[in-house]
């Protein structure tokens, strides 16, 4: 049987082209790689190379023919021992306009359709389950109002600990537990940490496991990803997350997407951590909250703790997690002290919110530094007879929407407090989800309190204006409660 030479697709979008010129003629011998014809696409004239060897037996599409469909036979190639008499019937295939058996056909098939169905079904189903990763589902859909958002045995001793100490303790415990864990970053070892989070680690674990890096975020973030591919459990510290923008390609394209791109064969267990958000008087380039950026990306987990107990428990969970975790700390909270349960192995599950304060009139959702405004506002509001329920989200992705929805179904009002910019924000996402998942329970539009939509100014008075404030939260709560 002579081999059909088909009209090739020469670009991802080409559907037809012009057969500009035949370079080989009937009777010519053809070797793989020989140019046999020239084809014009909408972009350029391309040369068509032979794939098989043989003799050009018959030309089916003459030079100059326009609008030749991709995959239409354009010539017949005779193999060794075949002659023109073998051509016969196969030339008839020219007329057939068979649908090519390509993988692109499924474009409009089940996937898109089922997605649409699932979307329209969302008003009935409270939660789009596909978007909640495995561990989100393991938490029973019941209210958990324990102060730590998890069980703590009765009589457990509480130790007053700063967030700074809690983070260090978490790393030290995991370094002791697992030899594959190591910490790398700028000034983490000999300097004892730019913010003293890694204080004492070099002394206990040595330079092999506590690694000072050059000031090259892109390079060492990528090197951490490679080390994770190689079986280690890197904890990569960014001096601040502002500098992680240099490394964001490695965090997203290499760390977050590999498990999916590898069909589940290998992933990237790594923690990227460091202070995030506004510190004080360091202006625009050093004051930005990146939660919304990272929480946009499937494959990443994003954690943003407020208390020391959560900082410790969540960092330990993050280090053990088989996925890349972006762990956003806050410089201002580093020195705050909280009770941390004294337990052998204190961990807090990723993806689970915590009810910080119970209340019946309004739900305030916040996390990280935003909690400081929410808590003070709730105290003030209580004096005026408004009892706010505060949810400390703790993890931004996967997001514990069930906890928020449960609370809003009870209070019928919601205010979300976030330090980051307002557009495409975490709070904006929560507000939209509440509209979908709790529409019938809302007695007022959901309001957001964000940092202002400006780069962070340096001047003390302007900086204060740019950040969310207790007053902003109080005003928003009163607005959703229709109180003035």
């Amino acid at each position, binding site marked *: 049987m002579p081999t059909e030479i*088909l009209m*090739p*697709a020469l670009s*991802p979008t*080409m559907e037809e082209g012009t057969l500009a010129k035949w370079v080989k003629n009937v009777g010519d011998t053809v070797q*793989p*790689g020989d140019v046999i014809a020239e084809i014009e696409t909408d*972009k*350029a004239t*391309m*040369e068509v*190379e032979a*794939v098989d060897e043989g003799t050009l037996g018959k030309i089916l599409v003459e030079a100059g023919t326009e609008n030749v469909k*991709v*995959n239409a036979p354009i010539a017949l190639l005779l193999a060794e021992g075949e002659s023109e008499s073998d051509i016969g019937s196969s030339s008839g295939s020219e007329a057939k306009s068979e649908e090519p*058996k*390509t*993988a*692109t056909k*499924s474009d409009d098939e*089940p*996937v898109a359709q089922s997605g649409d169905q699932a979307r329209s079904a969302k008003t009935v189903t409270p939660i789009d389950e596909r978007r909640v*990763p*495995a*561990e989100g589902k393991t938490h029973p859909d019941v209210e958990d109002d324990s102060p730590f958002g998890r069980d703590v045995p009765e009589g457990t001793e509480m130790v007053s600990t700063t967030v700074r100490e809690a983070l260090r303790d978490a790393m030290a415990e995991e370094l002791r537990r697992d030899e594959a864990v190591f910490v790398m970053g700028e000034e983490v070892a000999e300097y004892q940490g730019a913010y003293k989070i890694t204080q004492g680690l070099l002394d206990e674990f040595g330079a092999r496991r506590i690694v000072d890096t*050059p000031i090259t975020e*892109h*390079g*060492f*973030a*990528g*090197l951490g*990803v*490679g*080390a*994770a*591919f*190689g079986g*280690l459990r890197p904890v990569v510290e960014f001096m601040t997350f502002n500098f992680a923008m240099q490394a964001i*390609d*490695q965090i997203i*394209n*290499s760390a977050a997407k590999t*498990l*999916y*791109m*590898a*069909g*589940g*064969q*290998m*992933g990237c267990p790594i923690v990227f951590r460091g202070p995030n958000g506004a510190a004080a008087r360091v202006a625009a380039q050093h004051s930005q909250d990146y939660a919304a950026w990272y929480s946009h990306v499937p494959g990443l987990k994003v954690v943003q703790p407020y208390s020391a107990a959560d900082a410790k428990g969540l960092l330990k*969970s993050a280090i*053990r997690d088989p*996925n890349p975790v972006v762990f956003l700390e806050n410089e201002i909270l580093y020195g705050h002290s909280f009770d941390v349960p004294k*337990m*052998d*192995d204190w*961990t807090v*599950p990723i993806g689970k919110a915590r009810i910080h304060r119970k209340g019946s009139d309004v739900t305030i959702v916040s996390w990280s530094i935003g909690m400081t405004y929410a808590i003070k506002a709730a105290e003030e509001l209580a004096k005026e007879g408004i009892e706010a329920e505060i949810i400390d989200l703790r993890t931004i992705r996967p997001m514990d929407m069930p906890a928020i929805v449960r609370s809003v179904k009870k209070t019928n009002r919601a205010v979300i407090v976030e330090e980051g910019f307002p557009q495409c924000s975490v709070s904006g996402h929560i507000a939209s989800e509440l509209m979908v998942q709790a529409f019938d329970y809302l007695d007022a539009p959901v309001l957001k309190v964000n940092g202002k939509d400006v780069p962070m100014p340096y001047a003390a008075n302007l900086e204060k204006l740019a950040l969310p404030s207790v007053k902003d939260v109080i005003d928003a709560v009163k607005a959703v409660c229709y109180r003035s």
Partner: protein
Amino acid sequence: MAARQKNSSSGSSNSDKSKPSDKTVDTESGKEIVRTLENFSAPDPAEFSKEEELRAYRDMLLIRRFEEKAGQLYGMGFIGGFCHLYIGQEAVVVGMQMSMKEGDQVVTGYRDHGHMLATGMEARGVMAELTGRRSGYSKGKGGSMHMFSKEKKFYGGHGIVGAQVPIGSGLAFANKYNGTDAVSITYFGDGAANQGQVYESFNMASLWKLPAIYVIENNRYAMGTSVSRASAETDFSHRGLSFKIPGIQVDGMDVRAVKAAGDMAVEHCRSGEGPIILEMMTYRYRGHSMSDPAKYRTRDEVQKMRSESDPIEQVKKRLLENHEMSEDEVKEIDKEVRDIVGDAADFAQNDPEPDPSELWTDVYADEAPQAAE
């Protein structure tokens, strides 16, 4: 070819590195140039046994035929998106692979089909990934540029130019951390060699003496931009000098030269000397990707390389002339390779697409047990 010119013009330029001296004279300026890493020079091509020639021939031919078939399937619409073929560069990966041992790791960019076949990944699995089918190495979710095999220590398959260089350095970091004697081989092109993260990686790899071999596949064109139009220093073997990383230029069209350089580099890394750069002077016959009209070079240039320097023809000639093989015996190998590729192509066209439910899997890995829960 640049490497050849270099050899034939030995002594006439400052880049003659065949003499182990720490001083050379720039012929233009007459100034003395001190290069502390000068004593690194490309070793003579390895002497191949008949078995080695046969392995090289078969492995290179498999890549050549596989890529030709991939190009054909692309033309038929079975393969979509981007598809970067490795035709012409086969000696680089095959020669390097012959220097490696079990446990050594490989990472590369998006022109990766040849690297995967060289590490022993199955032609069926690679081709089925190219066609986006469920038996592909990534279940059809990665495609041409994103494939991995933990089993064969192939860590991708990266679509972002240069991103594999810190990753390969991190694999080397893990080897050193774990105290194994494995080395990581990081391939990247003359285009990627200008990326900033490459130099961040060089710095750390040298600082920490990581067992990393950086193989720069200089195929003369970064997409459509020739080396001289994009690079201030076109001798990429010198790119590590500021980081105290030695580098050598290798005739990447001669699989024996690649093997000899690979042996030397592997030995250098395993003995704890830190990283090394191998600049492979090679050539890609096909366009950058399937939709490249290749107007930046002449057909004659390509034909000249094919007819005078083809890596596969070189080995075939030696098999026929030095190892007393007959044309028929060589054809037997050709047939075996064609059968493997034909089988892979059939398989990849008939394998079902991934189940729609696969859309939602592999976004997150299963949770590790939480100790205190």
